Protein backbone atom coordinates (compact mmCIF):
# COMPACT_ATOMS: atom_id res chain seq x y z
CA UNK A 1 0.00 0.00 0.00
CA UNK A 2 1.68 3.30 -1.00
CA UNK A 3 2.11 5.89 1.67
CA UNK A 4 -0.63 8.47 1.53
CA UNK A 5 -0.06 12.19 1.90
CA UNK A 6 -2.04 12.00 5.09
CA UNK A 7 0.45 9.48 6.48
CA UNK A 8 3.38 11.75 5.61
CA UNK A 9 1.53 14.63 7.17
CA UNK A 10 0.82 12.72 10.35
CA UNK A 11 4.44 11.54 10.59
CA UNK A 12 5.64 15.12 10.11
CA UNK A 13 3.27 16.42 12.75
CA UNK A 14 4.40 13.73 15.20
CA UNK A 15 8.06 14.59 14.57
CA UNK A 16 7.26 18.30 14.94
CA UNK A 17 5.67 17.66 18.31
CA UNK A 18 8.84 15.82 19.40
CA UNK A 19 11.03 18.66 18.18
CA UNK A 20 9.01 21.35 19.92
CA UNK A 21 9.05 19.26 23.08
CA UNK A 22 12.82 18.86 22.95
CA UNK A 23 13.37 22.54 22.21
CA UNK A 24 11.03 23.73 24.94
CA UNK A 25 12.54 21.26 27.37
CA UNK A 26 15.83 23.11 26.87
CA UNK A 27 17.86 19.98 27.61
CA UNK A 28 19.48 19.73 24.20
CA UNK A 29 22.74 21.57 23.59
CA UNK A 30 22.52 24.76 21.56
CA UNK A 31 24.17 23.27 18.52
CA UNK A 32 21.71 20.38 18.43
CA UNK A 33 18.86 22.78 19.16
CA UNK A 34 19.78 24.71 16.03
CA UNK A 35 19.76 21.51 14.00
CA UNK A 36 16.34 20.60 15.46
CA UNK A 37 15.07 24.08 14.66
CA UNK A 38 16.19 23.73 11.07
CA UNK A 39 14.60 20.30 10.79
CA UNK A 40 11.39 21.62 12.37
CA UNK A 41 11.23 24.61 10.06
CA UNK A 42 11.67 22.32 7.08
CA UNK A 43 8.87 20.06 8.40
CA UNK A 44 6.54 23.03 8.90
CA UNK A 45 7.28 24.00 5.32
CA UNK A 46 6.64 20.55 3.93
CA UNK A 47 3.41 20.18 5.95
CA UNK A 48 2.17 23.46 4.51
CA UNK A 49 3.21 22.33 1.05
CA UNK A 50 1.38 19.02 1.48
CA UNK A 51 -1.78 20.94 2.38
CA UNK A 52 -1.30 23.41 -0.48
CA UNK A 53 -0.87 20.74 -3.08
CA UNK A 54 -3.36 18.20 -1.79
CA UNK A 55 -6.54 17.36 -3.59
CA UNK A 56 -9.05 14.95 -2.11
CA UNK A 57 -8.66 11.59 -3.78
CA UNK A 58 -12.00 9.94 -4.33
CA UNK A 59 -12.58 6.41 -5.57
CA UNK A 60 -15.67 4.31 -5.77
CA UNK A 61 -15.85 0.57 -5.32
CA UNK A 62 -17.71 -1.32 -8.00
CA UNK A 63 -18.13 -4.99 -8.80
CA UNK A 64 -16.29 -5.90 -11.98
CA UNK A 65 -17.66 -8.29 -14.66
CA UNK A 66 -16.14 -11.26 -12.84
CA UNK A 67 -17.70 -10.15 -9.56
CA UNK A 68 -14.43 -8.92 -8.08
CA UNK A 69 -14.52 -5.53 -6.44
CA UNK A 70 -12.52 -2.75 -8.07
CA UNK A 71 -11.66 0.82 -7.30
CA UNK A 72 -12.76 3.25 -9.99
CA UNK A 73 -12.30 7.00 -10.00
CA UNK A 74 -15.35 8.79 -8.71
CA UNK A 75 -16.15 11.74 -10.89
CA UNK A 76 -17.59 14.76 -9.23
CA UNK A 77 -19.89 15.04 -12.21
CA UNK A 78 -21.68 11.94 -10.99
CA UNK A 79 -22.82 13.96 -8.04
CA UNK A 80 -24.88 16.37 -10.07
Amino acid at each position, binding site marked *: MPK*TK*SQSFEANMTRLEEIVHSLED*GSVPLEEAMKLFQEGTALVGS*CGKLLDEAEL*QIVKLTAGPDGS*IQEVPFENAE*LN
Partner: protein
Amino acid sequence: MEQQIFTVTQLNNLIKAAFDNVPALQNVCVRGEISNYKLYPSGHHYFSLKDGEGLLRCVMFKGNAFSLRFKPQNGMSVIAVGKVSVFPRDGAYQLYCSRLIPEGAGDLQAAFDQLKQRLFEEGLFDRAHKKPLPDYPHRIGVVTSPAGAAVHDMLRILGKRYPLAKVILLPVRVQGETAAGEISRAIQYANREALCDLLIVGRGGGSVEDLWAFNEEPVARAIYASRIPVISAVGHEPDVTISDFVADLRAATPSNAAELAVPDQTELRGRLAAVQKAMTAALRRQAQLARSRLDALRACPALRDPHSLIRERRQTLDLSMNSLVNAETNLVHAQRNRLTRLAASLDAMSPLKVLMRGYATVSDESGQLITSAGAAAAAESLDVSFYDGTVRVTVQGGSHAKNKIPKL
Protein backbone atom coordinates in the same frame (compact mmCIF):
# COMPACT_ATOMS: atom_id res chain seq x y z
CA MET B 1 -70.31 17.66 -29.52
CA GLU B 2 -67.12 19.53 -28.92
CA GLN B 3 -64.87 18.49 -26.04
CA GLN B 4 -64.54 21.21 -23.39
CA ILE B 5 -60.97 22.32 -22.75
CA PHE B 6 -60.20 23.35 -19.14
CA THR B 7 -57.36 25.30 -17.80
CA VAL B 8 -55.51 23.52 -14.99
CA THR B 9 -56.96 25.93 -12.50
CA GLN B 10 -60.47 25.40 -13.79
CA LEU B 11 -60.10 21.64 -13.52
CA ASN B 12 -58.55 21.80 -10.06
CA ASN B 13 -61.36 24.07 -8.94
CA LEU B 14 -63.90 21.66 -10.38
CA ILE B 15 -62.32 18.77 -8.46
CA LYS B 16 -62.18 20.86 -5.31
CA ALA B 17 -65.89 21.66 -5.67
CA ALA B 18 -66.59 17.95 -6.10
CA PHE B 19 -64.69 17.11 -2.86
CA ASP B 20 -66.36 19.92 -0.99
CA ASN B 21 -69.79 18.60 -1.98
CA VAL B 22 -69.23 15.24 -0.31
CA PRO B 23 -70.60 15.58 3.24
CA ALA B 24 -68.57 12.56 4.46
CA LEU B 25 -65.33 14.38 3.68
CA GLN B 26 -66.26 17.48 5.66
CA ASN B 27 -65.70 15.92 9.03
CA VAL B 28 -63.53 12.81 9.07
CA CYS B 29 -61.53 10.93 11.66
CA VAL B 30 -58.55 9.03 10.29
CA ARG B 31 -56.03 6.81 12.05
CA GLY B 32 -52.43 6.69 10.82
CA GLU B 33 -48.79 7.09 11.62
CA ILE B 34 -47.19 10.49 11.28
CA SER B 35 -44.33 10.78 8.84
CA ASN B 36 -42.52 13.59 6.98
CA TYR B 37 -43.51 15.83 9.84
CA LYS B 38 -42.37 19.41 9.47
CA LEU B 39 -43.13 22.51 11.47
CA TYR B 40 -42.71 25.64 9.38
CA PRO B 41 -41.63 28.99 10.79
CA SER B 42 -45.11 30.20 9.87
CA GLY B 43 -46.42 27.94 12.64
CA HIS B 44 -48.21 25.57 10.24
CA HIS B 45 -47.61 21.85 10.63
CA TYR B 46 -47.22 19.71 7.53
CA PHE B 47 -47.07 15.92 7.65
CA SER B 48 -48.35 12.72 6.16
CA LEU B 49 -50.44 10.03 7.74
CA LYS B 50 -49.74 6.52 6.62
CA ASP B 51 -50.60 2.94 7.27
CA GLY B 52 -49.13 -0.20 5.71
CA GLU B 53 -50.24 0.70 2.20
CA GLY B 54 -51.40 4.25 1.79
CA LEU B 55 -50.42 7.80 2.48
CA LEU B 56 -52.48 10.94 3.17
CA ARG B 57 -51.10 14.45 3.04
CA CYS B 58 -52.11 16.59 5.99
CA VAL B 59 -51.78 20.15 7.11
CA MET B 60 -52.60 21.66 10.45
CA PHE B 61 -52.71 25.42 10.45
CA LYS B 62 -51.27 27.49 13.19
CA GLY B 63 -54.71 28.41 14.59
CA ASN B 64 -55.63 24.76 15.13
CA ALA B 65 -52.15 23.76 16.28
CA PHE B 66 -52.58 25.83 19.44
CA SER B 67 -54.80 23.09 20.79
CA LEU B 68 -52.05 20.46 20.46
CA ARG B 69 -51.09 19.05 23.84
CA PHE B 70 -48.15 17.05 22.53
CA LYS B 71 -45.35 17.45 20.06
CA PRO B 72 -46.17 15.47 16.91
CA GLN B 73 -43.30 13.22 15.88
CA ASN B 74 -42.60 10.93 13.03
CA GLY B 75 -43.65 7.38 13.73
CA MET B 76 -46.31 8.48 16.14
CA SER B 77 -49.69 6.86 15.70
CA VAL B 78 -52.52 9.41 15.80
CA ILE B 79 -56.14 10.00 15.02
CA ALA B 80 -56.56 13.12 12.93
CA VAL B 81 -59.85 15.00 12.70
CA GLY B 82 -60.63 17.46 9.92
CA LYS B 83 -61.93 17.85 6.39
CA VAL B 84 -60.54 16.61 3.14
CA SER B 85 -60.21 19.11 0.36
CA VAL B 86 -58.08 20.01 -2.64
CA PHE B 87 -55.14 22.39 -2.68
CA PRO B 88 -55.53 23.75 -6.21
CA ARG B 89 -51.99 25.07 -6.46
CA ASP B 90 -50.54 21.55 -6.16
CA GLY B 91 -53.49 19.69 -7.60
CA ALA B 92 -53.42 17.55 -4.51
CA TYR B 93 -55.99 16.67 -1.96
CA GLN B 94 -55.14 16.78 1.69
CA LEU B 95 -56.57 16.57 5.14
CA TYR B 96 -57.05 19.96 6.74
CA CYS B 97 -56.54 18.82 10.27
CA SER B 98 -58.33 20.55 13.12
CA ARG B 99 -57.45 18.09 15.88
CA LEU B 100 -54.73 15.55 16.39
CA ILE B 101 -55.01 12.87 19.05
CA PRO B 102 -52.06 10.61 19.90
CA GLU B 103 -52.82 6.93 19.92
CA GLY B 104 -49.95 5.14 21.55
CA ALA B 105 -46.69 4.52 19.75
CA GLY B 106 -46.65 3.46 16.13
CA ASP B 107 -45.43 0.06 14.95
CA LEU B 108 -42.11 1.36 13.76
CA GLN B 109 -41.59 3.24 16.99
CA ALA B 110 -42.39 0.09 18.92
CA ALA B 111 -39.90 -1.88 16.85
CA PHE B 112 -37.32 0.82 17.38
CA ASP B 113 -37.86 0.87 21.14
CA GLN B 114 -37.73 -2.90 21.41
CA LEU B 115 -34.53 -3.27 19.40
CA LYS B 116 -32.93 -0.37 21.22
CA GLN B 117 -33.72 -1.91 24.59
CA ARG B 118 -32.47 -5.34 23.54
CA LEU B 119 -29.19 -4.08 22.09
CA PHE B 120 -28.67 -1.80 25.06
CA GLU B 121 -29.05 -4.75 27.43
CA GLU B 122 -26.64 -6.72 25.27
CA GLY B 123 -24.07 -3.96 25.71
CA LEU B 124 -23.88 -2.79 22.11
CA PHE B 125 -24.06 0.84 23.22
CA ASP B 126 -21.42 0.56 25.95
CA ARG B 127 -19.10 3.52 26.13
CA ALA B 128 -16.20 1.18 26.88
CA HIS B 129 -16.60 -0.38 23.45
CA LYS B 130 -16.33 2.93 21.62
CA LYS B 131 -13.13 3.22 19.63
CA PRO B 132 -11.20 6.46 19.35
CA LEU B 133 -11.18 8.15 15.96
CA PRO B 134 -7.84 8.66 14.21
CA ASP B 135 -6.46 12.20 14.45
CA TYR B 136 -5.39 12.17 10.83
CA PRO B 137 -7.49 9.68 8.86
CA HIS B 138 -5.60 8.41 5.84
CA ARG B 139 -8.39 6.51 4.11
CA ILE B 140 -12.00 7.25 4.85
CA GLY B 141 -14.58 4.70 3.81
CA VAL B 142 -17.97 6.23 3.13
CA VAL B 143 -20.90 3.83 3.15
CA THR B 144 -23.81 5.69 1.58
CA SER B 145 -25.74 6.24 -1.58
CA PRO B 146 -23.49 7.48 -4.41
CA ALA B 147 -26.32 9.74 -5.54
CA GLY B 148 -27.80 12.58 -3.60
CA ALA B 149 -26.86 15.59 -1.60
CA ALA B 150 -25.42 13.75 1.39
CA VAL B 151 -22.40 12.26 -0.38
CA HIS B 152 -21.87 15.52 -2.24
CA ASP B 153 -21.84 17.50 1.01
CA MET B 154 -19.47 15.05 2.68
CA LEU B 155 -16.97 15.04 -0.18
CA ARG B 156 -17.07 18.81 -0.42
CA ILE B 157 -16.41 19.25 3.29
CA LEU B 158 -13.75 16.53 3.46
CA GLY B 159 -11.97 18.09 0.49
CA LYS B 160 -12.14 21.55 1.96
CA ARG B 161 -11.02 20.59 5.45
CA TYR B 162 -8.50 17.84 4.85
CA PRO B 163 -7.61 17.19 1.22
CA LEU B 164 -4.75 14.89 2.25
CA ALA B 165 -7.12 11.99 2.84
CA LYS B 166 -8.34 9.45 0.35
CA VAL B 167 -12.04 8.75 0.26
CA ILE B 168 -13.26 5.31 -0.70
CA LEU B 169 -16.91 5.34 -1.52
CA LEU B 170 -18.78 2.11 -0.85
CA PRO B 171 -22.00 2.68 -2.78
CA VAL B 172 -25.07 1.13 -1.19
CA ARG B 173 -28.79 1.56 -1.29
CA VAL B 174 -29.80 3.40 1.86
CA GLN B 175 -33.51 2.68 1.77
CA GLY B 176 -35.73 -0.16 0.75
CA GLU B 177 -35.74 -3.87 1.49
CA THR B 178 -32.13 -4.54 0.55
CA ALA B 179 -30.61 -1.46 2.22
CA ALA B 180 -29.77 -2.96 5.63
CA GLY B 181 -28.07 -5.96 4.02
CA GLU B 182 -26.04 -3.79 1.65
CA ILE B 183 -24.97 -1.42 4.39
CA SER B 184 -23.90 -4.17 6.77
CA ARG B 185 -22.07 -6.08 4.03
CA ALA B 186 -20.20 -2.91 3.02
CA ILE B 187 -19.07 -2.41 6.63
CA GLN B 188 -17.95 -6.03 6.82
CA TYR B 189 -16.14 -5.77 3.49
CA ALA B 190 -14.25 -2.65 4.60
CA ASN B 191 -13.11 -4.51 7.72
CA ARG B 192 -12.18 -7.70 5.90
CA GLU B 193 -10.07 -5.79 3.37
CA ALA B 194 -8.71 -3.29 5.93
CA LEU B 195 -9.89 -0.73 3.42
CA CYS B 196 -9.69 2.36 5.54
CA ASP B 197 -8.99 3.69 9.01
CA LEU B 198 -12.34 5.43 9.45
CA LEU B 199 -15.86 4.65 8.27
CA ILE B 200 -18.73 7.07 7.80
CA VAL B 201 -22.06 5.29 7.51
CA GLY B 202 -25.15 7.28 6.74
CA ARG B 203 -27.51 9.09 4.46
CA GLY B 204 -29.31 12.37 4.10
CA GLY B 205 -32.62 13.28 5.65
CA GLY B 206 -35.89 11.50 4.99
CA SER B 207 -38.92 10.08 6.65
CA VAL B 208 -38.67 7.57 9.47
CA GLU B 209 -39.32 4.88 6.87
CA ASP B 210 -36.55 6.23 4.64
CA LEU B 211 -34.07 6.06 7.50
CA TRP B 212 -35.29 2.69 8.69
CA ALA B 213 -32.36 0.65 7.43
CA PHE B 214 -30.24 2.34 10.07
CA ASN B 215 -32.61 1.02 12.72
CA GLU B 216 -32.16 -2.58 11.66
CA GLU B 217 -30.28 -5.16 13.63
CA PRO B 218 -27.83 -6.32 10.92
CA VAL B 219 -26.55 -2.76 10.50
CA ALA B 220 -26.26 -2.31 14.27
CA ARG B 221 -24.31 -5.57 14.61
CA ALA B 222 -22.02 -4.77 11.66
CA ILE B 223 -21.18 -1.42 13.21
CA TYR B 224 -20.58 -3.02 16.59
CA ALA B 225 -18.31 -5.69 15.08
CA SER B 226 -16.33 -3.16 13.01
CA ARG B 227 -12.68 -2.86 14.03
CA ILE B 228 -12.56 0.34 11.99
CA PRO B 229 -14.08 3.24 13.95
CA VAL B 230 -17.52 4.19 12.65
CA ILE B 231 -19.23 7.57 12.54
CA SER B 232 -22.97 7.31 12.15
CA ALA B 233 -24.42 10.10 10.00
CA VAL B 234 -28.10 9.57 9.45
CA GLY B 235 -30.65 12.20 8.46
CA HIS B 236 -31.01 15.52 10.19
CA GLU B 237 -30.18 16.64 13.68
CA PRO B 238 -33.40 15.41 15.41
CA ASP B 239 -33.31 12.00 13.73
CA VAL B 240 -31.98 9.35 16.05
CA THR B 241 -31.34 5.83 14.85
CA ILE B 242 -30.02 2.64 16.39
CA SER B 243 -26.86 3.14 14.31
CA ASP B 244 -26.24 6.37 16.20
CA PHE B 245 -26.23 4.50 19.50
CA VAL B 246 -23.89 1.72 18.33
CA ALA B 247 -21.46 3.87 16.36
CA ASP B 248 -18.24 5.13 17.91
CA LEU B 249 -19.44 8.65 17.22
CA ARG B 250 -22.83 10.05 16.28
CA ALA B 251 -22.91 12.91 13.83
CA ALA B 252 -26.03 15.06 13.55
CA THR B 253 -25.88 15.04 9.76
CA PRO B 254 -23.61 13.69 7.00
CA SER B 255 -22.00 17.15 6.73
CA ASN B 256 -21.37 17.10 10.44
CA ALA B 257 -19.81 13.63 10.07
CA ALA B 258 -17.36 15.01 7.53
CA GLU B 259 -16.47 17.79 9.96
CA LEU B 260 -15.97 15.38 12.84
CA ALA B 261 -13.98 12.93 10.71
CA VAL B 262 -11.01 15.09 9.78
CA PRO B 263 -9.01 17.99 11.16
CA ASP B 264 -9.52 21.36 9.51
CA GLN B 265 -6.61 22.54 7.43
CA THR B 266 -7.19 26.13 8.56
CA GLU B 267 -6.66 24.97 12.11
CA LEU B 268 -3.72 22.80 11.05
CA ARG B 269 -2.06 25.75 9.35
CA GLY B 270 -2.62 27.72 12.53
CA ARG B 271 -1.01 24.93 14.51
CA LEU B 272 1.94 24.84 12.13
CA ALA B 273 2.39 28.58 12.54
CA ALA B 274 2.21 28.13 16.31
CA VAL B 275 4.80 25.34 16.14
CA GLN B 276 7.12 27.58 14.15
CA LYS B 277 6.61 30.33 16.70
CA ALA B 278 7.21 28.00 19.63
CA MET B 279 10.38 26.63 18.03
CA THR B 280 11.69 30.11 17.34
CA ALA B 281 10.93 31.22 20.89
CA ALA B 282 12.54 28.11 22.37
CA LEU B 283 15.67 28.52 20.29
CA ARG B 284 15.88 32.20 21.11
CA ARG B 285 15.51 31.37 24.79
CA GLN B 286 18.26 28.82 24.53
CA ALA B 287 20.50 31.23 22.64
CA GLN B 288 19.93 33.83 25.34
CA LEU B 289 20.78 31.27 27.97
CA ALA B 290 23.97 30.41 26.14
CA ARG B 291 24.76 34.08 25.75
CA SER B 292 24.33 34.80 29.43
CA ARG B 293 26.57 31.84 30.24
CA LEU B 294 29.12 33.21 27.84
CA ASP B 295 28.82 36.65 29.41
CA ALA B 296 29.34 35.13 32.84
CA LEU B 297 32.47 33.40 31.60
CA ARG B 298 33.68 36.56 29.98
CA ALA B 299 33.21 38.40 33.22
CA CYS B 300 35.47 36.05 35.17
CA PRO B 301 38.94 37.64 35.85
CA ALA B 302 40.95 35.06 33.97
CA LEU B 303 39.35 36.06 30.69
CA ARG B 304 38.64 39.68 31.43
CA ASP B 305 42.29 40.51 32.43
CA PRO B 306 44.62 37.66 31.62
CA HIS B 307 47.62 39.81 32.70
CA SER B 308 46.30 39.77 36.22
CA LEU B 309 47.23 36.12 36.43
CA ILE B 310 50.81 36.93 35.58
CA ARG B 311 50.79 39.85 37.90
CA GLU B 312 49.52 37.71 40.69
CA ARG B 313 52.12 35.07 40.06
CA ARG B 314 54.82 37.69 39.81
CA GLN B 315 53.75 39.07 43.12
CA THR B 316 53.87 35.65 44.63
CA LEU B 317 57.30 35.19 43.17
CA ASP B 318 58.41 38.52 44.55
CA LEU B 319 57.18 37.57 47.97
CA SER B 320 58.95 34.25 47.76
CA MET B 321 62.08 35.95 46.63
CA ASN B 322 61.81 38.29 49.52
CA SER B 323 61.42 35.46 51.96
CA LEU B 324 64.35 33.73 50.41
CA VAL B 325 66.52 36.77 50.72
CA ASN B 326 65.42 37.26 54.26
CA ALA B 327 66.11 33.69 55.07
CA GLU B 328 69.53 33.94 53.54
CA THR B 329 70.29 37.15 55.35
CA ASN B 330 69.27 35.60 58.59
CA LEU B 331 71.38 32.58 57.88
CA VAL B 332 74.45 34.68 57.05
CA HIS B 333 73.88 36.73 60.09
CA ALA B 334 73.67 33.70 62.29
CA GLN B 335 76.84 32.24 60.80
CA ARG B 336 78.63 35.51 61.24
CA ASN B 337 77.67 35.56 64.88
CA ARG B 338 78.91 32.07 65.25
CA LEU B 339 82.12 33.00 63.52
CA THR B 340 82.55 35.98 65.77
CA ARG B 341 82.05 33.79 68.78
CA LEU B 342 84.49 31.23 67.51
CA ALA B 343 86.98 33.92 66.63
CA ALA B 344 86.69 35.30 70.12
CA SER B 345 87.32 31.87 71.58
CA LEU B 346 90.19 31.40 69.23
CA ASP B 347 91.55 34.75 70.10
CA ALA B 348 91.35 33.89 73.73
CA MET B 349 93.52 30.91 73.08
CA SER B 350 95.98 32.74 70.81
CA PRO B 351 99.70 32.02 71.68
CA LEU B 352 100.34 35.69 71.21
CA LYS B 353 98.19 36.39 74.19
CA VAL B 354 100.21 33.93 76.19
CA LEU B 355 103.40 35.54 75.01
CA MET B 356 102.06 38.93 76.03
CA ARG B 357 101.58 37.67 79.49
CA GLY B 358 105.40 37.23 79.70
CA TYR B 359 106.00 33.90 78.07
CA ALA B 360 108.37 33.25 75.16
CA THR B 361 109.00 30.39 72.81
CA VAL B 362 112.38 28.90 72.23
CA SER B 363 113.56 27.37 69.00
CA ASP B 364 116.92 26.28 67.62
CA GLU B 365 118.66 27.86 64.67
CA SER B 366 116.71 25.68 62.29
CA GLY B 367 113.49 26.93 63.78
CA GLN B 368 112.73 23.68 65.58
CA LEU B 369 110.77 24.44 68.76
CA ILE B 370 112.79 23.57 71.92
CA THR B 371 110.59 22.33 74.70
CA SER B 372 113.12 20.96 77.20
CA ALA B 373 116.18 22.18 79.05
CA GLY B 374 118.11 19.19 77.76
CA ALA B 375 117.48 20.14 74.15
CA ALA B 376 118.34 23.74 74.95
CA ALA B 377 121.64 22.79 76.64
CA ALA B 378 122.67 20.86 73.58
CA ALA B 379 122.26 23.88 71.30
CA GLU B 380 124.79 26.67 70.92
CA SER B 381 122.32 29.41 70.29
CA LEU B 382 118.62 29.69 70.55
CA ASP B 383 116.03 31.99 69.15
CA VAL B 384 113.73 33.31 71.86
CA SER B 385 110.50 34.66 70.45
CA PHE B 386 108.57 37.28 72.42
CA TYR B 387 105.23 38.62 71.45
CA ASP B 388 106.88 41.51 69.62
CA GLY B 389 109.93 39.90 68.18
CA THR B 390 112.73 37.39 68.39
CA VAL B 391 116.21 37.62 69.99
CA ARG B 392 119.12 35.24 69.54
CA VAL B 393 120.71 34.07 72.71
CA THR B 394 123.84 31.98 73.46
CA VAL B 395 123.49 28.93 75.68
CA GLN B 396 125.73 28.95 78.78
CA GLY B 397 125.31 25.62 80.57
CA GLY B 398 122.09 24.59 82.24
CA SER B 399 120.45 22.32 84.64
CA HIS B 400 118.00 19.59 84.19
CA ALA B 401 116.06 20.80 87.11
CA LYS B 402 112.56 20.37 86.30
CA ASN B 403 110.65 23.44 86.99
CA LYS B 404 107.06 23.13 87.18
CA ILE B 405 105.65 25.33 84.52
CA PRO B 406 102.41 26.76 85.61
CA LYS B 407 99.50 25.93 83.44
CA LEU B 408 97.87 28.54 81.37
